[in-house]
């Protein structure tokens, strides 16, 4: 699964698309953590980066990307092109991360 290439361009340099396998996607909804929220509360006074949240969102994106790659792997793809991310807050304290792209076979 790790050998699947990801790109948000329409092609991968030096290769040719030989088969399209349709859209693949992955999503995850994450809620914030109480401990982190207390730290964030302090940071809300002095301003600056909320590292805990930055990490949380990075981890969540890794997870939804992994789900997308699993789907691509099942279809036998070796690349996912034109990848897009989207973030939406579904309720107070929770965010949904969504990633989608087109699974293809390149050579």
């Amino acid at each position: 699964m790790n050998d699947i290439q990801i790109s948000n361009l329409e092609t991968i340099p030096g290769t040719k698309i030989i088969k399209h396998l349709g859209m693949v996607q992955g999503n995850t909804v994450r809620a914030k953590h109480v401990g982190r929220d207390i730290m964030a509360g302090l940071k809300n006074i002095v301003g600056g980066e909320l590292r805990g949240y930055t990490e949380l969102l990075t981890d969540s994106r890794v997870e939804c990307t992994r789900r997308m790659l699993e789907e691509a792997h099942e279809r036998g793809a070796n690349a996912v092109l034109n990848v897009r991310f989207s973030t939406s807050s579904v309720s107070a304290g929770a965010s949904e991360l969504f990633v989608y792209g087109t699974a293809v076979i390149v050579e």
Partner: protein
Amino acid sequence: MGGFLVFLFLLGLGFFFGRMNERKHFASLHQREEDLSHITISTVKKLPEGYVSSAFVTGNVVISIDYFKRIAAALRTLVGGRIGSYTTLIERARREAILRMKEQAQENGASHVANVRIETSSVFQNASQQLGSLEVYAYGTALK
């Protein structure tokens, strides 16, 4: 009375530390942007000529406004107009996210990042619906 003193204390704390943090952040942004200026970025979707391999690179940051600026912005919304405190906050976040993406591109030995997309969202919005912190996420395809 006690509540008012706490308010003033938070306001002062936000004012001094917020300003300090902001100045430090801008200085660091400036320095790092200079160091990474050899990596060019573009929003062109088509693959430019002359590159042999690609890698997906990303950068994100969650940033929070300080107490003083939040109050200043709340007062500003009464009369309308340009909210300077949020403008600089979002600028800082965006430049930071782009820099982190470029740093990842540098680790990959890339010289160009194509099709850069930037997404801004207000994350973990609190119950009172005010913008407390926001996330900027930048991603693109690093080429070498």
